Structures are given as C-alpha cells and as structure tokens.
C-alpha cells in the first residue's frame, strides 16, 4: 500500500456520505427482497 487507507473514507457513491449508510441501504434492500419473496410465495402458493 503506497498510501495509508482510512477505514472511514467516503464511499464515493452518490447519495451516501458514509459506509454505514451504504450498509443500511444494502440491509434495507435485503429486507425488501425477503418481503417480496414471502409475498410472491403467498400469492402463488
């Protein structure tokens, strides 16, 4: 590593200022996917 990396560097993703925000977004998407799959199973079962 030529330069020291900061664990808390900005993710550089539009709309997200911290990595915690990115993780929360991914977690939220996961919950939505599980919810969608549950509804899908209920709808067609």
């Amino acid at each position, binding site marked *: 590593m030529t330069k020291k*990396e900061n664990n808390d560097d900005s993710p550089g*993703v539009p709309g997200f200022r911290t990595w915690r925000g990115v993780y929360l977004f*991914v*977690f939220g998407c*996961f919950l939505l996917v*599980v919810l969608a799959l549950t509804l899908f199973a209920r709808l067609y079962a």
Partner: protein
Amino acid sequence: MNALDWIVLLGTIIGIAAYGTWRTRHTDNLNTYLKGNHSTKWGTIGLSVMATQASTITYLSLPGQAYENGIAFIQNYFGLPLALILVCAVFLPIYRKLGVYTAYEYLGQRFDTKTRLLGAGLFLLQRGIQAGVTIYAPAIILSTAFGWRLDLTIIFTGLVAIVYTVTGGSAAVNLTQKWQMAVIWAGMLTAFVILLLKLPANATHIAGAMGKLHAVDFTPDPQLRYTFWSGLLGGFFLSLSYFGTDQSQVQRYIGGAALREGRLGLMFNALFKIPMQFFIVMLGALLFVFYQFQPDTPLVFNQSAWQRQVQGPAGAEFRALEEQHAVLHAAKQEKIRAWVAAQSGGDITAEAAARTELAAAQKASDTLRKQARDTLYAAAPEAKKTRDSDYVFITFILTQLPHGVVGLLVAVMFASALSSKAGELNALGTTSTIDLWRAFRPLAAHDEARNVRNAKWFTAFWGLFAVGFALYVSFAENLIEALNIIASVFYPPLLGVFLVAFFFKKVGGTAVFWAALATQLLLLGLFFYGKDTVAYLWLNPIGCAACIGFALLFQALSPARPPATT
C-alpha cells in the same frame, strides 16, 4: 451440436482464455500475480467474486433442483448479504491495512505460525477436494449428455484453466472472469427468454399450484434442510466463512485500487446475489411447467443411460414404465387444464377440489419417476453418480434451443467451470507459496522472481491435482449439495479462529489452535453420527460457536495469557 454450435463454443471459451493469457503474459511482479492489477475497479472485483462463487453446478444443477423440489433453495442465500456487510466492515479493512497476500498470513501475525499453518492447511484440504468436484461436476453431466469421453472433458477443462491461471495469476483470473460472466449472463438470459415464449400464459400460477414456488418457509424445524432460519443463520455463517476466510474469495477483493473498490465489489454481490439465484431457480420452476405440457416429456432425463437400457436385454421392463408414464402424463395434463378452468371460473370449492386432484396426479407421477430411476440405477449403477434432475436443463438446451444458442449455452457451462476453477487454483497456488513455502523459507521472501516462479509451479500442481482427483474419484451424492456439505464440515473451525482473532483480543494462539482441532473433531462426529437430527447448514453456527467457546475455555485454563499483538 452442429458446426455453428462448435464455432460459438470453442470461439468463446478458447478466445477468452487466449485473450487472458496474452494480456497478462508479462506478469512477473509478485503483488500483481497474487493480488491482480493495482488499478482494478469495483465492477471487476464484484464480477470476479460472483464468478468464483458460481460454478457450473449453479447453472446446470440448480434449475434441475428447482424443477424437482421447487425454489426453496433460494433461502440458502439469505445470510449472504449480512455476512458480506460484516466482511466489508471488519475483515477487509484489516487485510488491507496489514497488506497481507492471504487471509492466513493475518493469523500468523495475530497468533502464531502453527495457527497460520492450521488455517492454511484446512483451506488447502477442503478447497483442494472442492477443486476436484467443481471440475468433475460439469464434465460428468456434459459428457453423458453429449456422449463425449469423460476423461477428455475433464482434461480439456483443467488444462485451459491451468494455462491462463499459471501465466497471468490473479490478473488473468480477474480479466477472464469479467468476460466469462458476460457470456454466462447472455446465455442464461437467452435461454430464459426462449423458455418464456414457449410457456402458457398462466405458467407461474400453475407452478404455484403444483407446489414449486414455496420460496420462504418460516417453520422453526432444524431437521428441515431449507427454511428461512437455516438460511439466515446457517447461510450467514457459511457465507461469512466463505467470503471472509476462504482465500479463493479473499484474493478476489483484497487487491484493487483502494479499499473502496473491494467494498463496493462485495456490496454489488450483497445486492444482486439473491435476485440472480432467484432468476436461476425460477428458470427451473418454469421448466417444470414447460415439461407438463410437452407430449414427449422424458420419464428420466438422463436419456443417454435410459435409452441404453430400453434397447438392452431388459428393454421390455423399461418400455413398460414408459407406457405407464405416457398414461399418467396425459392424465396429469387433463388435471392441470381442469384446475386452470376452475381457477379462472372463480369457484373456490371447485378450485380446491381440482387442486387436490392435481396434487394426487403429481404424486403418482413422482412415484413412477422414482420407480423408473431405481430401476435404471439397479441396471446401470454408474448412472447414480449424478442426479437425474442434473439433466433437466441440458435436455431443454439440446432439444428446444436453436443451433448457435446451444453452443452459447454449452459455453456458459464451460465458462462457469473455468471461472470458478481459475479462482480456486489461483488461491491454492498463492496459499501454498505464501503460507507454506515462504513460512519455511523466510530468507527467500525477498527474491520476487523466485516467489512468482514458485507460485506458478504450485498453481500448476494444484491444477493437475484437481484433474487427477476428478479422473479417479467417484462422487455419488448430489453435486451442489456435496460442495456445501464439505464446506459446512471444514469451514466453521476456520471461521471460529478468525472471529476469535478479530473480537477476542485476549485469546492466544495455542488456545485457538486446540479449539479449532477440537471443533473439527466435533463437526466430523456430528456429520457422521448426527446428520439425521441436524441439517448440514446448522453445522456452521454450531461449529463456529463451539470454536469460540473452546478457545475461551482453553485460554481461561491456560497458565500463560499472551497479550494480543494486533
């Protein structure tokens, strides 16, 4: 396959391999050879992580598994996004900060040499075996379906992967995996669209009525193989072990231009892995519906083995089974049409009665299929090496897709075999060089050219080992589960060691070393003597908790308590 299919197949597979070899032929820097180019961006890392995890078994066997048992397997991936978040937040920054080549190098810095060697040894043992399985799995199915020689198929796949992985190391693996993923997605999407065009309008409702769309099951029963809870907890620990401590994955994201690139590559997988797997299992569920309406749906999909028996001395018995199948299949089609009519009529009572009759018809059909398979296995025991469901998707490809697309789909199978194989060989070669060879030859660590040369030799060795293993070892179990079962037995102690390293700073190397060994014995005991009471995914949390518990206990009993160094 005709000439067009062969051109597409060989052009794609050899073209990508040759491109990767040519572009990375001058890789003689150790860092680039083991970690890839410094400029690698998150997109390449994300695709590389995905390509390493998804082998041919994912694309070939998973649709068949969904055809047979429905899409419940999707729950196996529920723990994956959460595990990737933890890897991003804790594992990756530490690996990057210490500048290690392998995950086990970190264990050496945090604990001691014996713990590092134990970690590397557990990885080499289980990944070496899995490398044999991942090369054997597609070869046995493709060679049976196409009538190719199994040994030549294994050798061809193995040699192509060895050539470009040895030449360009991690840089070649990253580069080729990107293009291989493009071929895989192009092929799978094409097959999916063609399947959709061939389906009746209410195909999803029919799949649901026939019990193929139970995506989520909240039943808290540890004996059930796939439930929300086993997927969330077992899948979490399995994914954490795989992505956090398995060098074949760590190597994919540890390099890159910056910490950010590795993190975004992993978050890409956290977001898209479940949707991608859903797409593959839905392909299987819809194939099931497709084959309900085909007049010539095979009783057994391994037609190569089946037809040999039909035309053999006991052919009368097999033809009788086919005749029974034709009668049951026609009756089931009638029941499906009756259910569709009842459902569209809106009469709840009639719909329920039609559904009950349909379920009975399906049960009779399943019973006959099982009887046919048992009869086939009794007459031809070699057919038991693969599950019949492994031939569902390849049968669809061969009989329903136009020429050119057949070649593309077979290229998908080879591309996925090569991409996962290359990632594994790259990691096996790296771990052998850094954690074994260099650990015993510390003075040679500064001779970069010698390190690269050794890494190439070790990579070639593991490639040939995998080919030899695939040539001489028979696998009788379902292949996709065999991979997960091997991982569930060997991963948990390794993950336990890493979690102790990260979160229990007072525990030293000796305590965690013996804790890992004790846990491995416990898991082997549970696997061989308790597999009827505990589904294999549960071995992951049990093993991981046991390893941490043993480590804390051994440390408490230990007279000396060395301070943590990291």
